[in-house]
């Protein structure tokens, strides 16, 4: 069996959400830079680039629901656990270092970047622990 239908759907969703993210981010930055955003819409436009990222979490959830191959689903669950443990641990450590003024303050969205990096670490862990069947 090649890639499952669920996997193909998941990839299409990722492509559309990534494109939306790029468009929303460029639009929001341009809008704020050139003071084109009306006062009543400032919060909405500022949050706009976050929506596709939230959508990616939703897409991962949908994939886990739709994937019929239980083993492949388990691999993704392991990756998600790795991503969550890695990013939350990093945020906790950074928070304390920041509190004691040992590191600079980091923007909140870095935790999402760390989470996606953790997803990659989870994939590596799968490969290292399960060999040929881990990727």
């Amino acid at each position, binding site marked *: *069996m090649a890639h*499952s239908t669920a996997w193909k759907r998941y990839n299409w969703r990722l492509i559309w959400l990534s494109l939306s993210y790029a468009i929303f981010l460029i639009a929001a930055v341009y809008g704020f830079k050139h003071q084109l955003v009306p006062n009543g819409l400032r919060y909405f436009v500022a949050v706009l680039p976050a929506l596709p990222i939230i959508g990616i979490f939703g897409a991962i959830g949908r994939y886990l629901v739709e994937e*019929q*191959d*239980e*083993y*492949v689903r*388990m691999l993704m669950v392991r990756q998600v656990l790795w991503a969550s443990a890695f990013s939350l641990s990093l945020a906790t450590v950074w928070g304390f270092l920041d509190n004691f003024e040992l590191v600079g303050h980091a923007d909140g969205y870095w935790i999402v970047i760390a989470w996606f990096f953790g997803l990659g670490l989870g994939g590596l862990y799968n490969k290292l622990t*399960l*060999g*040929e*069947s*881990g*990727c």
Partner: protein
Amino acid sequence: MENRLRVLRATRAWSQADLADRLEVSRQSVNAIETGKYDPSLPLAFRIAELFALPIEEVFVSPSRRSSGAI
């Protein structure tokens, strides 16, 4: 969990991909089950046993029976 999947597959001259197609799972799933890296759910274990027309205990070795030395 130990199993006889590789032997059963070999008797039918099926590749891992052939068996994966018949079970409607990925080849990596078959590989993981064969090598004992993944224990299938009960529904998948039954599907495997039914495909080979065998009782489930003739495909998979019960861990408790194995540890007690019964097998």
